[in-house]
């Protein structure tokens, strides 16, 4: 069969959703509007997660009470990917003294990045209750 005989139908499924954040994620996202980052510490095993989350990834305990953390990150890994804007640098960032890491973007020349480097959040001018309230993280310049 030649290509000209192959019939390809082009369609698009439009599926809008409204995702309920739930109590703990809501507390985290609302915190961002005040430029505050929140985590959850598991009462059963002590695991500390940032961002805050409703269940402990280690022991499955419900983690309902959040605490504000220092807005300081450390770079665990990064990757530069091509993008229509040129490129983007995604990173895994350990925020405060969390036991887990968080995905976000880094605003820096990837060639200057080093594992363990200290990072600070760059907030948008009028932060909304979305992770994009933090535009990106950037290395803290030594003074």
């Amino acid at each position, binding site marked *: 069969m030649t290509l000209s005989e192959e019939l390809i139908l082009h369609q698009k499924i439009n599926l809008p*959703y409204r995702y309920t*954040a739930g109590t703990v994620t809501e507390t985290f996202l609302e915190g961002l509007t005040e430029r505050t980052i929140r985590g959850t510490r598991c009462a059963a095993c002590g695991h500390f997660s940032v961002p805050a989350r409703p269940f402990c990834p280690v022991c499955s305990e419900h983690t309902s009470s959040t605490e504000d953390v220092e807005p300081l990150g450390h770079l665990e890994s*990064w990757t*530069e*990917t091509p993008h229509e804007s040129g490129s983007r640098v995604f*990173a895994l960032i350990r925020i405060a003294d969390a036991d*887990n890491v*968080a995905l976000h*973007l880094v605003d820096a020349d990837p060639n200057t990045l080093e594992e363990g480097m200290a990072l600070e959040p760059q907030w948008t001018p009028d932060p909304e209750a979305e*992770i994009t309230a933090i535009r990106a993280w950037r290395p803290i310049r030594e003074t």
Partner: protein
Amino acid sequence: MAQVAVIGVGQSVHAPERNDVAHAELLQEAIDEALDDAGIELADIDNAVTASLDFYDGRTIANMAVAEVVGSYLKAESRVCSDAIHALTYGWSRIADGQFRLGLITAHCKESEGNLHDIENAAFDPFIERRLDADDDVVAGLYARTAFAHGAADRENAAALVAAARASASRNPKVAPLEMVDTAAVLESPVLATPLRTLDRAPRSDGSCVLVIASADTVAALDADPVWITGAAISTGRYWSDRHPLDMATLESARDEALAMAGWSSNVADVIEVSAKYSFQLQQFAAVLGADESDAGGAFNPSGGRHAGNPTVVAGLSRVAECVEQIRGRAGDRQVSRAEKAIAHGVTGLGAQAHAVVTMETAA
């Protein structure tokens, strides 16, 4: 526990775009071949476990779109949304349980039909990570940088495995021809997500794979050519961002359980077929499974593995099918000598979240 054997295998030709067939037709190619191999009719099957992913198929309940060719009406059909090696472990347990005797395990996927970035992005949690517009390549890049920096994988050796896989593909009639490359060509291919290049990711593929599995009494009644499943285990790890890139506990858990079931020490397999979407993972997984990288294309992934061109969902089950053909001595130009014991591996999920390991042997 009843003994379970694979008595029929079938694979479509896997190619970047199978525009000549729709999903059900693509799957039928493998079903026809597997039934013929087993010497049975579709109506003889008493249950089926199918594997597919709705987002790739572009419709919900995508298993019902292949129900006719699977022949599952009025039968116990069940479905997994994962690599089909999970469907095999499910179908295996049904027969091992004694409830069923002759099962069909099916896998199909056309990676060519949807937008892979959008499909992969939909797998991230919708509250935090999805908004950042990441995909599988981003996770792979983040993991690979750590793996290379800490010696869990090697940049040049990972590229060499891609070159070896493509060379093996030329001996595998079930995959479309791929351009032959050397290590330098992999390292010089366009950036995917640093430190990975586009050739580090398994090529886009459309394809299907099917197994017929049977209980021991059915094997005897059919006078079939069995390869016995002596161990089968699955293990699911934590979400990708809760798991360290070097943490192989999930795969180790599946390996240990399968090998214990088979009664093997770790290194007795004559053939090991490892599934990985990215080159550096192939190194990491091979090390855990006891495959020797220097045997790539020989005892380690004689088929070429996923980098020879098998789609998601199908890739792990294809590893099982290749092991069965090796043990039966029917692997053609890719046949390894004295293949009596084999390990097949499959993986699914963001950052390789869930692994499955299956051991196969000539005798139960």
